[in-house]
């Protein structure tokens, strides 16, 4: 079943490339993938931390390399996020003027790569699937992008390529650091080796740093974040939705999956560095976001800024904090996809996203205004939306700090500063909402039409998911926590 979810978009993409009708095939594939994921959730056995639905094909017995897929609570949440956003993005796409088939194929490749990465238990395929999205992203921004698309496409591609090769080095070192008998790319084997303390502390520090830089580039951790706003501003809306909403979460997923369970010593060693960098994300990038004059750039920067909170949750090494990070990953993925979708539609209709030229659009586009409002409130973290649950959990978790509970430590300062980040994001989000949708309507925009019904469905899907999740976060929390509980208590007891 897991395999079906992975293969759905990829097979559909190949079919589209050889000439199947683009939109129909893509929609069918993403609906199928979404349905299959819902089925997975229904059949998911709560309270277990083992992987379920495991299927495995041996690729290379010599390297103990096998194509193994399976899900636990964490990856199931990520797969669900990926399939929801894929469905929304594909539905939202509509008709494309040039190379329509290629556009849909690229979208589906990105989605398939992300789903594959989330559902792979084998590190090699975990890595490889993520890279599957690299070239489609390059093409999406390059061919169908807007603004300074050439520079943006080069920047994102080179950044991500170098980031992922650094990540690859970290993964190879991780593979080499366990004793030869238990050497494997299988996360379960590695976790077992790590819980026996077979990964030396010295090696952990090196590997964690490599993983932090590698994943950090992919997640746009400060100071490696400069590719992100530019790329998201230039990318066509569906691509930005998928990339900011899903693909960027790959790095966070990787940190949660590898860094904390496998390398606790490394994580402890580099905590201070990570805290400083993530404050850079929250405070510095937050202030930069306020200064933005265009909606697409603002959204790009805001997505970089919100990564800071998630990092804070991961760095806290408490069950509360890491669970909060997962909740926020999911919530942020949905809300940023929603915002990018609306911004993309605005750009298509008005041709500009500069704040000073917009204004009062809610009068002519009430549905868009409402949906954007939902997105903005979610991004700020208003109660009722999942983002709120995630942020609260992260702040409480981080304030406690899993490494040394009793003393005063850097996390308390960091949490206090990060709380100011909420104020910052309120400022820029509400300002954007006011400038774009409130105020006096410019006469130029009198002719604008609201979202047609074809666009309302994906938007409603995202909003619905956000609200649903916001009111019942407990459902997901219960899926995710067992896994973390095992890791974090094991780390404690050593």
């Amino acid at each position, binding site marked *: 079943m897991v395999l079906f979810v992975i293969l759905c978009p990829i097979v559909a993409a190949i079919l589209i490339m050889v000439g199947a009708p683009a939109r129909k095939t893509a929609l069918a594939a993403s609906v199928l993938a979404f349905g299959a994921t819902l089925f997975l959730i229904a059949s998911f056995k709560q309270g277990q931390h083992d992987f379920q639905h495991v299927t495995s094909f041996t690729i290379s017995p010599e390297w103990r390399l096998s194509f193994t897929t399976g899900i636990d609570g964490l990856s199931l949440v990520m797969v669900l996020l990926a399939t929801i956003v894929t469905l929304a993005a594909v539905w939202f796409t509509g008709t494309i003027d040039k*190379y329509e088939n290629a556009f849909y194929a690229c979208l589906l490749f990105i989605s398939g790569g992300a789903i594959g990465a989330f559902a792979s238990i084998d590190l090699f395929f975990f890595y490889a699937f993520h890279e599957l999205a690299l070239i489609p992203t390059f093409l999406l921004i390059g061919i169908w992008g807007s603004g300074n698309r050439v520079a943006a496409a080069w920047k994102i591609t*080179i950044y991500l390529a170098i980031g992922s090769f650094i990540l690859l080095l970290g993964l190879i070192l991780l593979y080499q650091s366990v004793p030869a008998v238990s050497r494997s790319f299988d996360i379960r084997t590695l976790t077992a080796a790590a819980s026996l303390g077979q990964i030396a502390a010295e090696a952990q520090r090196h590997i964690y740093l490599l993983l932090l830089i590698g994943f950090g580039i992919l997640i746009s951790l400060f100071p490696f974040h400069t590719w992100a706003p530019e790329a998201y501003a230039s990318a066509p809306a569906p691509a930005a939705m998928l990339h900011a909403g899903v693909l960027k979460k790959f790095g966070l997923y990787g940190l949660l999956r590898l860094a904390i369970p496998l390398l606790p010593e490394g994580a402890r060693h580099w905590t201070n560095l990570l805290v400083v960098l993530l404050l850079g994300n929250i405070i510095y990038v937050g202030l930069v976001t306020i200064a933005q004059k265009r909606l697409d750039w603002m959204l790009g920067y805001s997505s970089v800024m919100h990564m800071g909170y998630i990092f804070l949750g991961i760095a806290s090494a408490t069950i509360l904090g890491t669970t909060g990070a997962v909740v926020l990953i999911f919530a942020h993925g949905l809300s940023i996809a929603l915002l990018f979708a609306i911004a993309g539609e605005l750009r298509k209709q008005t041709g500009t996203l500069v704040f000073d030229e917009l204004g009062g659009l809610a009068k002519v586009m009430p549905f868009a205004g409402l949906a954007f409002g939902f997105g903005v409130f979610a991004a700020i973290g208003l109660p009722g939306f999942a983002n709120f649950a995630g942020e609260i959990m992260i702040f409480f978790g981080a304030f406690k700090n899993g490494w040394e509970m009793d003393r005063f430590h850097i996390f308390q300062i960091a949490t206090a500063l990060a709380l100011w980040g909420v104020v910052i994001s309120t400022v820029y989000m509400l300002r954007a909402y006011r400038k774009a949708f409130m105020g006096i309507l410019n006469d130029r925009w009198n002719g604008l039409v609201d979202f047609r019904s074809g666009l309302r469905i994906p938007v409603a899907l995202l909003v619905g998911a956000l609200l649903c999740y916001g009111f019942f976060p407990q459902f997901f929390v219960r899926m995710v926590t067992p896994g973390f509980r095992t890791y974090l208590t094991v780390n404690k007891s050593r």
Partner: protein
Amino acid sequence: MITAPELEITVLVLGMVILMVEAFATNIDKRVLAFAAITGLAIVLLATFFVTPGASPSPTTGFWSFYTADRLSIFFKQFALVTTIFVLIMMTDYAPVVRSSFPGSTSQAGLGEFFALPIFTCVGLMYLVSAIDFVFIFVSLELVTISFYVLVSFTRRNPITLEAGIKYLVLSALSTAFLVYGIAWIFGVTGQTNLQRITEVLANPGTDRGAALLGMVFILVALGFKIAAVPFQIWVPDVYQGAPTPVTAYLSVGSKAAGFVVLLRVLQPFLALPQMQRLIVLIALLTLIYGNLAALPQANLKRLLAYSSIAHAGYLLIGVACFDGRAVSFYLAAYLLMTLLSFAVLIIVAQQTGEQISDFDGLAKRSPFLAFAMLIGMVSLAGVPFTAGFLGKFFIFYAALKQHQIALVVVGVITVGCGFYYYLKVVRAMYWQSTAKIDKIPVTGLSRLAISALIIATIWLGIFPQPVLDALQR
């Protein structure tokens, strides 16, 4: 039962027969010869799978003292045969260009030899990968090199080609001289030409290692020319650009592979000397940096591929510096597929428009098949997962990290980033740019088949490396 030496003899006889038919049957379509050669080589390729690999029965005397049929050699014999088959297919596509360079004479002039010579090169390559004696290495290397002299300057009415031919001739002959001089010194120290006996003598602490090292450095210079390592790479861009394109493909795959196999074999006796490793690490670093940086501004695709071939020599040298023969061999296999793929597309497109990267503008509209093939080739050269090129880099970096070669790894990762830029430049031209030309580009059935086979093989090897790894198991 087939034995390994029979393979080479069969190919040699095939080459002779084709040359004879070419000389005496004047009225046939010369492309028939190419098809005959392809069929013959394919049969030999099939036969290689029935040869039982094994070390020489008597490694110190007689025939088996200079010829081995171990797994590595059988693998590279298949490698040479596959390369030659694909090059011959490309040559049939390239035939109109060859014909046009012999104006005034009959329409078939020169084609027969053009198809026959690669077979002799192939024999040379096949002998070379089996050679374990310096005399045999020298003779088979020269068989390869001299047939390349002719092939490189084959379209001799084209002054660019002729210039490439001269440059290749002079620098290759120079490297031969270094090789011979180096062999002389090693012989002087050890009194042996057989590699295994040289190993035994060098292990003896009484041997004058300094002089042996001097000899080895000379040999390294010579092989550096063959594999296009910095600072012996100067001929590569000019010759690659000037030579007929199928020959360029052959040079960059066959000649380089042969150079690396010989390098792996002759380094074996010198592993005990620590200076050797440091020297190779240095050469690898220089090659990586030079190849990748110089490739960045190129606008001519053939020249870009020349610099990329230097860059790949750098990655391969990382493997050599870590003495990981399997990683190097796997990388070469991946390199074979992706390079031949890129050249196969280049030959077809270049006849329609040209060799500049800008001539590929809008290829995705004019021929989606060729554009996709080139995309796979470029992406694999850059090293994206699910292609052979990525696994090649993976094994190389694995070996380097295992040996703690931090400098090599750091430079390697940075240059991979450069690689993404210049390979994707081609992708960009094909997919982003638009063009005024809208006519479709015709692809013959045989080429379509060959290109499809290469695409599938590139992706297949990127997902299932185990068959190739098994073939390389010692």
